[in-house]
């Protein structure tokens, strides 16, 4: 397990002039989730995540579709290298990519800041990741949560087991 190497900006479709993001923005992400859950319910929150997955992330999804699992692995290596405080390993095996999140940068910062975190927070990675994968004919599954978890991308959606949402832990603030 190790912190990813420096970001490869060309792998990420949207790039900044600084190498890593500002962690206080995790406060905004968490507050956005809580706001949508309160106003629109779980179904509205899932719709938000899936819409963002298909629209905002369309350029990256297109690269996944063109480049397959190696493009998925390269994306997540670059992604986590730009997220401050993350400890993540990305490994490739036939037919799948595994992302082992030893330290989730968002939950680390939110907990350190004493924030009340949406209990459903960790499920956003599944709803968004799987919707993005689906645009490229893939599937994503998640287990764990509350600070560490494993994401698995399957190159063929039909080979992925069903996602059991109960295997995604609720977050304790």
């Amino acid at each position, binding site marked *: 397990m190790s912190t990813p190497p420096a*970001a490869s900006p060309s792998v*990420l*479709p*949207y*790039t*900044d*002039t*600084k190498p*890593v*993001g*500002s*962690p*206080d*923005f*995790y*406060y*905004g*992400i*968490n*507050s*956005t989730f*809580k*706001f949508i859950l309160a*106003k*629109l319910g779980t179904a*509205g929150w899932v719709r*938000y995540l899936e*819409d*963002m997955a298909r*629209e*905002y992330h369309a350029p990256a999804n297109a690269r996944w579709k063109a480049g397959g699992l190696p493009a998925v692995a390269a994306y997540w290596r670059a*992604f986590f290298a*730009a*997220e*401050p405080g993350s400890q993540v390993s990305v490994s490739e095996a036939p037919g799948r990519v595994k992302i082992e999140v030893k330290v*989730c*940068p*968002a939950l680390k910062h939110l907990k350190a*800041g004493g924030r009340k975190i949406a209990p459903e927070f960790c499920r*956003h*990675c599944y709803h*968004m*990741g799987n919707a993005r994968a689906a645009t490229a004919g893939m599937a994503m599954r998640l287990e764990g949560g509350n600070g560490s978890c494993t994401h698995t991308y399957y190159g063929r959606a039909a080979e992925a087991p069903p996602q059991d949402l109960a295997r995604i832990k609720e977050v304790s603030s």
Partner: protein
Amino acid sequence: MIGCYDFCGHYEWTFGWFERTGGHALVRAYWYEAIYLDAQTHARDLIAKEGFEGMAKYWGHTLLEESPSLGFTITQRPDVFRIDFHDCPSRGFLLRNGLKNYRDYCDHCMGWTGPLLKDCGFTIDGEHNHLGQCWWEMRKPDPKRGISPPGATSGSKDARLLPNWKGPGAVIDRYVQASDPDAKEPRST
């Protein structure tokens, strides 16, 4: 995962999603309830307790994190706290990456800081040109006061003195002793 590296991108996309989902009222509620009352509680706590000193601590920290290249200048005097952005890290991210899902991203600043500063006893004068350049003056309200002339508060750092302040593509929005994102004066170019 939704990350912080490209936060400004999905934040802007979110404004458009809210407008399509629940109209302008939902966008305003988001800035007020989610950003001001929840995400930025640390800003409110500092400014409510320490006034201009709290603003200096909050924006000094957060802008340095967002803009380590120092695309901004803070000016603090006994009667005013001012920020001049020559290269807004947030708007700049959108411009560089060609992102636009909401009609006026810059409104979000007034959307959450306006109510916060109002609750702390301040109003905002300011202008932005939608090209990543703007200025903000936070003061105690005074109905007799107009906006400060260019250079009067921050000297040569005044964003209005930049050669491209009214350059190609610039559309100026102005707030005068405002607290509400919809309280803009008529636009000029």
